[in-house]
C-alpha cells in the first residue's frame, strides 16, 4: 500500500480584488470582483512506506496548501487522494490518528502550561496506554534531550527547545507517516543537526515515512534521496537528488588567482579554442566556466600558464541551492 497516492490533486481558491481608494472600497461593498487562483494544479504524487521525501518550492508555490490537503485540513477542489489508504478530509477523525504533523510556524503545544501537561493531554487524545506511552516517548524524550524542559511552560522555551518538543508531540502516537512543514525554520545549526539525526533514526527504527517542506536545502541533502519540486502549483521535478545534481549541476567551474592583474580579453584569446567563458571576480581572480563536461582542467591551465603566473586554483562544486535557483530562474520543465 502506498502511503500517499494523489492523482490530479487540485485546490482552487476564490479571492477578491480590492478596488483602489475610498470610492473603490465603497463599490466593493456591493459588488466584489472575484478571481480564482489555482494554488495546487493537478499534481500526481506517490510516496511509498519508509521514504523520506523533500518537498520544495518558492513561497506561494503551493507547498503548504498541498500539505494541508494531505493532512485533511483542506478539502481538495478536485482529484483523487488517498493517504494511509483513507480520504483525509472525509474520514478526518480516524485518519489523523495515523499521521503526525509539525508546522514550523505554529505551535501545537498549549502555550500557558508545562510541556508535560500537553503530552499527557495528547496521550489521552490518542488513547495511549501508560505502557505504550512510556516505551515510545521515553526513547523520544531521551534522544531529543528534552527531559529537563518538560516542567517548563511552553512560552518560556526558546525556539530550538520548543521545536524539539513539537516534534516529540507530533510523534507521541508513533504515526507511520510524518508531515513536517518547515521544521527547521529559524533554528541554529546544532539544533538542526539534532533534529535531522533524530528524523533519520525514527525512519530507520520505525520505518516512518516523512514528507518535509523546507527552504533550507541542506535539510533535504541530509535527509532525503528524493525531491519533489513545485512551481506555481505544478510539479516540475520529481526524482532523486543525485539525478538533479548531475542533470543540472554538471557545469564545472574553476577559480584561478594570478600573481598579477590579468585581462578577460587576454584570457579569452588564450583559450579561444576551448568551450570556456570567463568571469572577472577582481583584478587577479577569475572564474572559468566550462561549457562541456569533458574538458580537462590541465588543458586550460597549460594555455594560460604561458602568459600568466597562476598563484592558486580551486575547483568549485555547484550547490543544490544554486541548481534549484537556476531551475526556478530558467523555469524549465524538461527533466
Amino acid at each position, binding site marked *: 500500500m502506498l502511503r500517499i497516492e494523489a492523482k490530479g490533486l487540485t485546490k482552487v481558491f476564490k479571492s477578491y480584488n480590492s478596488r483602489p481608494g475610498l470610492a473603490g472600497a465603497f463599490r466593493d461593498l456591493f459588488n466584489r470582483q472575484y478571481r480564482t487562483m489555482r494554488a495546487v494544479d493537478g499534481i500526481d504524487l506517490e510516496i511509498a512506506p519508509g521514504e523520506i521525501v523533500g518537498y520544495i518550492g518558492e513561497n506561494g508555490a503551493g507547498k503548504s496548501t498541498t500539505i494541508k490537503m494531505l493532512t485533511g485540513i483542506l478539502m481538495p477542489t478536485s482529484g483523487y487522494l488517498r493517504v494511509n489508504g483513507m480520504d483525509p478530509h472525509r474520514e478526518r477523525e*480516524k485518519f489523523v490518528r495515523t499521521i503526525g504533523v509539525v508546522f514550523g510556524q*505554529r505551535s501545537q503545544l498549549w502555550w*500557558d502550561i508545562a510541556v508535560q501537561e500537553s503530552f499527557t493531554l495528547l496521550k489521552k487524545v490518542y488513547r495511549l496506554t501508560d505502557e505504550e506511552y512510556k516505551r515510545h516517548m521515553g526513547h523520544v524524550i531521551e534522544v531529543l534531550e528534552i527531559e529537563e524542559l518538560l516542567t517548563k511552560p511552553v512560552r518560556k522555551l526558546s525556539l530550538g527547545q520548543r521545536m524539539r518538543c513539537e516534534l516529540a508531540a507530533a510523534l507521541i502516537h508513533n504515526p507511520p507517516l510524518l508531515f513536517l512543514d518547515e521544521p527547521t525554520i529559524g533554528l541554529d545549526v546544532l539544533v538542526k543537526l539534532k533534529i535531522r539525526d533524530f528524523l533519520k533514526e525514527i525512519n530507520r527504527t520505525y520505518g516512518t515515512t516523512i514528507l518535509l517542506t523546507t527552504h533550507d536545502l541542506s535539510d533535504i541533502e541530509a535527509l532525503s534521496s528524493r525531491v519533489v519540486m513545485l512551481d506555481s502549483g505544478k510539479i516540475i521535478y520529481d526524482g532523486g537528488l543525485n539525478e538533479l545534481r548531475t542533470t543540472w549541476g554538471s557545469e564545472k567551474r574553476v577559480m584561478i588567482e594570478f600573481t598579477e592583474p590579468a585581462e578577460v580579453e587576454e584570457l579569452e584569446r588564450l583559450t579561444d579554442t576551448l568551450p570556456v567563458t570567463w568571469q572577472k571576480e577582481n583584478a587577479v581572480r577569475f572564474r572559468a566556466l566550462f561549457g562541456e563536461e569533458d574538458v580537462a582542467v590541465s588543458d586550460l591551465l597549460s594555455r594560460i600558464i604561458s602568459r600568466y603566473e597562476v598563484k592558486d586554483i580551486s575547483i568549485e562544486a555547484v550547490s543544490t541551492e544554486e541548481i534549484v535557483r537556476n531551475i526556478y530562474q530558467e523555469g524549465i520543465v524538461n527533466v
Partner: protein
Amino acid sequence: MFSMYAEIIRIRFLTMLAYRVNYYSGIIVYSINIGAYYFLWNAIYGGQPSMGGLTSQQMVTYVAISWMARAFYFNNIDREMALDIKEGKVAIEMIRPYSYLTVKLMQGFGEGLFRLLFFSVPGMLLVSFIFPIQYPDSAATWSWYLFSLLMSFVINTQINLITGLLTFFFYNNEGIMRAKRVIVDLFSGLILPISFYPEWAQEILKYLPFQAISYLPGMIFTGAMKGEEIYSALLVQSTWVILLLLPAWMMWRYARKSIVIQGG
C-alpha cells in the same frame, strides 16, 4: 473518550490557575456589580413589598444568584475561536482526532467549573453575610436549579460557538461578538428580570433563547417559580439545547469544506 474530556477540563483548570490576577480581579468586579444592583433595587422598591412577581427579598437573591451563575455559564469561547480562525490555529485543531466543537464546549465547561468552585460558591457565602439572601429550602429546588444551571451553560456556550464560527464567514466579527455579549446580558434577564419588561417585549423574549440562560434558573432559585412552572421552564431550556445544536453543527460542516487557513 471520557478521560480525554476530563483531561481537557483539567488542563483548563491549570490554565486558569496560571492567570491568578484575572481570578482576583473577577471577584472584585462581581462583588461591585452585586453591591451596586442591591442598592439600586432597594431604591427602586422603595418600601413596596412586591414588583414584577418578586418580593424585594427575592430580588436581592435573584441579583446575587444571577451574577454568581454568570460566573459559571459565561466564557470567552467565541473570542478564542475567532482568534484560532484568524491566526490559522484552527489547522492544529483539525489534525487532532477529536471534534473541535465538543472540545471547545468542554474547555468552556472546565473554565465554568473552575469559577463555580473557586469563585461562585465562596462568593455566595461571602455575599450572604452582607446581604439578606434567601436560599431554596428544599433539596428538590436545589437539584432543579443545578440542572437548570447546567442547561443555561450549554445554551450560552452553543450561542458562543455559533458566534465564534461566524468568523469563518466574516473574518472579523469583533462587532458581532460585542453585540452578542450585550444582548445576552440584557435579554437573558441578568440586568433586568424579564417580568419587568413591557408586555410586548416579554412576548418577543419568550421566543428567544436568551431567557433560558439567566432568567429561568434565577426564578427557580428565588422560589418565584413553583411546581408546574419549573417543569415548563426546564422544558423550554432543553428545547433550546436541542434546537441550537443544528445551526452550530451545520455551520461547522460548511466551514470545514470552505475553510481557508489564514497566514499560509
